């Protein structure tokens, strides 16, 4: 087992060395003529306004939280899946109970809307809305009076 993991370590090292080699090769070949404008942050040609490191929407955090719980659940199921065949129906029912308890939580977050992605709710114009002409007319009226 250790030699197998040793090969994985070799893969990690080879990956890192390959990346380093590529970067060094290009470092030898490429030009290097930096100036202030070239090194400025890219924002489609505009001067960047404010820091990009602003406060993010909490929805990313919610996704990561729910993911974590489910991932731990999956980790529990993997060793079980390896051997449950030889234990028959009992092992299956054990897993059903395990999942059933978790499905309660899943149903809870589903019903409470935590799985919804927070999205902006723009108000769309309807037939009852004032048209631009009526707005102008109203303004004209108010100016005249």
């Amino acid at each position, binding site marked *: 087992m250790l030699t197998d993991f040793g090969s994985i370590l070799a893969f990690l090292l080879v990956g890192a060395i390959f990346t380093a080699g590529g970067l060094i090769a290009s470092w030898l070949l490429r030009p290097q003529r930096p100036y202030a404008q070239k090194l400025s942050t890219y924002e489609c040609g505009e001067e960047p306004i404010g820091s990009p490191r602003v406060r993010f929407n909490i929805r990313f955090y919610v996704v990561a939280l729910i*993911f974590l719980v489910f991932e731990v659940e999956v980790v529990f199921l*993997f060793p079980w899946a390896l051997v449950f065949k030889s234990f028959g129906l009992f092992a299956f029912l054990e897993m059903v109970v395990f999942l059933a308890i978790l499905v309660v939580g899943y149903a809870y977050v589903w019903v409470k809307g935590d799985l919804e992605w927070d*999205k902006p709710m723009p108000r769309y114009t309807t037939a009852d809305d004032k048209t631009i002409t009526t707005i102008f007319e109203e303004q004209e009226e108010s100016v005249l009076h």
Partner: protein
Amino acid sequence: MENILQLLSNPIVSAVLMALAPLLFILPYALVTIYIEMKMAAHIQNRLAYMQTGWHGTLQPFADILKLLQKEDIIPTAASKFLFILAPYLVFVGTYSSFAVLPFSSAFIGSNIDLGIFFLIAVSSLVVVGLLMSGWASNNKWSLFGALRSAAQIVSYEIPSALAILGVVMVSGTMSTQEMTHFQDGGIGQWIIFGGNLPLWQKLSLIPFMIILFLIYLVSSMAEVNRTPFDIPEAESELVQGYNTEYSGMKFAIFYLAEYANLFLVSAVVVILFFGGWTSPFGTFLSGPVWGAFWFVTKGMLFVCLNIWLRWTLPRLRVDQLMYVSWKVLTPFALLCVLAIGLIVVM
């Protein structure tokens, strides 16, 4: 000669050589796939793509590499330099170490650990951290938004894909990728998508659930490689290039290579899980270690082409649709499939 043989039998040297071998596959594979992708995209959109460099533009990928090597490497002054340089390492190392557990043939696997497929799920998390690192270090709005979206997307789709893998582990009773392939040896009818080598009635009742699991894994693997229809993290029209906006030259090339390597990786996992890995579809006919490598790469490339085809055919999803698909469609169906498979297997 004697010395060379002795050197090769040294476990460290052989481990390093085994670790180098997939690199020799990835580099030509990336060149070919970039070409195939451009040509397929062009023909789907009724145009020609490159025609000038060599016969039908076949030399274009080489020209691209030369160009990328010579490009100036720009590190923006606002960036966190150390993390900016570290991020491509993490992304490539995370992707490349997954190749350790791909059984290219019955004779070649980088590392035959008992937990192969489990390791594959785990090591992809290195890539997520690498993407977040690149996005944050760039200190650029597009990069940071792209990285956050990308991370949220990958973690959301990891649950359905892990559940799909769980279903296959339940049928085959092993997490080693090599044993999983041996389980499916013996022709097309033994593949897990057709129920593996279980008794006939079990096979027949497993088929529908296996097909559903296959579709779940296919969709979530497409989301994990961030390609259209799931390319919200690098949606050109809103985020320029996503997390690698600020990267140029060779660092960008590393991200690009990792993306294509990842594409083969998920396709290869589909092949290992459902389509028999390196086994020949004709049983013992055309099988053996060399034919094994041929079948593995051919099947993998078929799914790579399927991915490219879908990428250039489907429009992009919206973020909320993406989360809806993952949490409210794929996850419940995957849970139901796991339950059904469990019942069928213990019966």
